[in-house]
């Protein structure tokens, strides 16, 4: 079964989007998850709730607000334009930002769980042996939370690949720029091209299964907490 050029473009764009979003989210989500896991601040609850919000909000709602917030008429949009950025809606960059917000909890929660499970005594031992905070993070905390990073990476990637509502709202469906696999399928179905839709859908199904397998293979234990985090269907 061969893919059309536009199919391949969509597949490559999807992978590129998911890879960039996952990388950025792990980078930015790690300090946030560390803070959430270890702080006693009274802001912990509200910030935790905001971080988890994309999990419960309909993607269209997130997409709608982002569209309004990033649009050239909004204050943020104007500010971005002032710095020579944007307008962001209906661009790849806009899609990256939207996807990061949408997939945030899927990266932050596994990391947060891993960090709160960290053995305090290991960190204390490292400290007594002369390791400062940054040294402790990279030499002890990071290797001990490997599994958390693995789960966060897979879930972040898979969830970004699987998003649809947000993409449609903020990205539109522009081939080569914002047309990802899920929106491409939507286009096929709208034009009653079931055969092409079927091909891409099968690819998505196989991909999703393949990516979830290793997740469940690395012991069931840490996944107990992740059940509620399984990518929901758009």
């Amino acid at each position, binding site marked *: 079964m061969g893919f059309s050029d536009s199919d391949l473009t969509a597949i490559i764009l999807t992978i590129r989007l998911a890879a960039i979003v996952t990388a950025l989210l792990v980078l930015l989500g790690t300090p946030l998850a560390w803070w959430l896991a270890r702080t006693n601040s009274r802001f912990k609850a509200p910030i935790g709730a905001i971080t988890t919000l994309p999990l419960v909000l309909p993607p269209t709602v997130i997409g709608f607000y982002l569209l309004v917030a990033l649009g050239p008429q909004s204050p943020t949009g104007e500010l971005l334009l002032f710095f020579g950025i944007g307008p962001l809606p209906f661009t790849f960059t806009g899609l990256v930002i939207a996807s990061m917000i949408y997939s945030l909890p899927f990266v932050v929660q596994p990391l947060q769980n891993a960090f709160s499970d960290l053995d305090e005594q290991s960190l204390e*031992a490292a400290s007594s042996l002369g390791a400062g905070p940054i040294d402790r993070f990279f030499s002890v905390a990071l290797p001990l939370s490997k599994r958390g990073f693995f789960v966060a990476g897979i879930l972040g990637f898979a969830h970004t690949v699987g998003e649809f509502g947000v993409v449609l709202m903020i990205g539109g469906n522009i081939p080569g720029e914002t047309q990802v696999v899920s929106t491409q399928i939507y286009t096929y179905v709208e034009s009653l091209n079931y055969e092409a839709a079927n091909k891409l859908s099968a690819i998505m199904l196989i991909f999703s299964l393949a990516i979830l397998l290793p997740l469940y293979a690395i012991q069931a234990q840490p996944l107990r907490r992740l059940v509620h985090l399984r990518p929901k269907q758009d």
Partner: protein
Amino acid sequence: MSLSAQIHLTRKEERNQKFELRAEFKIPDDGITAIFGPSGSGKTSLLRCIAGLEKQVTGQILFKSEVWQALDSFLPPYKRRVGYVFQSQNLFPHLTSQQNVDFAVQRRTSVEHQLNPESIYEALDISSLLDKMPHQLSGGEQQLVAIARAVLSNPSLILMDEPLSSLDEQRKKKSISTIKNINEVFGIPIIYVTHSINEVLEIADHMMVIDNGKLVISKPLMEALTELPESGAVWPDLGAVIEGIVTSRDQNYGLSEVEFQGGHLRVANDVLEIGSKVRLSILARDISLARTKQEDSSILNKVQADIIEILEDNNPAFRRIHLSTKKTQFRALVTRKSVDSLGLEVGQTVWMQIKSVAINN
């Protein structure tokens, strides 16, 4: 006097209970200090305060010329250079024993007494364990690697929290003498937490007794032990601790004679060097009393002493009798019935018959 502290720690425990620790002490920096007390008394908390692991602690801590903690300053643990050995699970689970030790070696800052790893591995008998991951080691083996790691981090002070509780008797004995060696040979002061009086007797030069969050005694060992009876709640079973000198050996019977202030005792050991100092301990229940020196008894050790005090025991069938001979204090645990039938009274001179004497070094 080189570690001095005045600290106060309050911590909320479960069910709204409040734990409070208060301690003010000065301890020397050349020997081994034991922190002794029952479980839950605050020994570990005190040790953690010294290491800088308890952030809520208030007060001040001075070590040699360094200010570890004062009103407006708090030196974090990684700048205090203390080697800390936890009660269990010390090792980083993702590193082999060797890598665990290397973690410490790579981060040492001072060039003062940099020890040779090989000699430490040998002393602790852990060379064969170095390639293994922590989960492949027994609890006791992990402790030995952790001790090596702490020593090789080149610390200015080593803190140990019941480090040997997971070792069997034989390894425990050997490790205690290794710890004493580390202290003597390399001159690193050690603070050692334990709830076992036997470990205190074997290891300590200085003793801190902590009870219910309060530091009650901090003195050189022998002085601390003579004060122990007054805080009887901590240790009711110890009859006497005696430091003496070996005066003669009887190879025929396998005995040595030890002279102390107030008499002499024979102990079942004929390898002690004549003229060497030994530390002996006797349990209170191994001392029985007689009005006359009974020559027709199998008990070898008979010492004359004066009754100073007769106290009630927690068990109403017994009395605690405090005795003294010259400068040495004894405590005997005797039934109330015997006290009455022998007519024992304060001021009397009696013969102590000592059934068993333990050698602590």
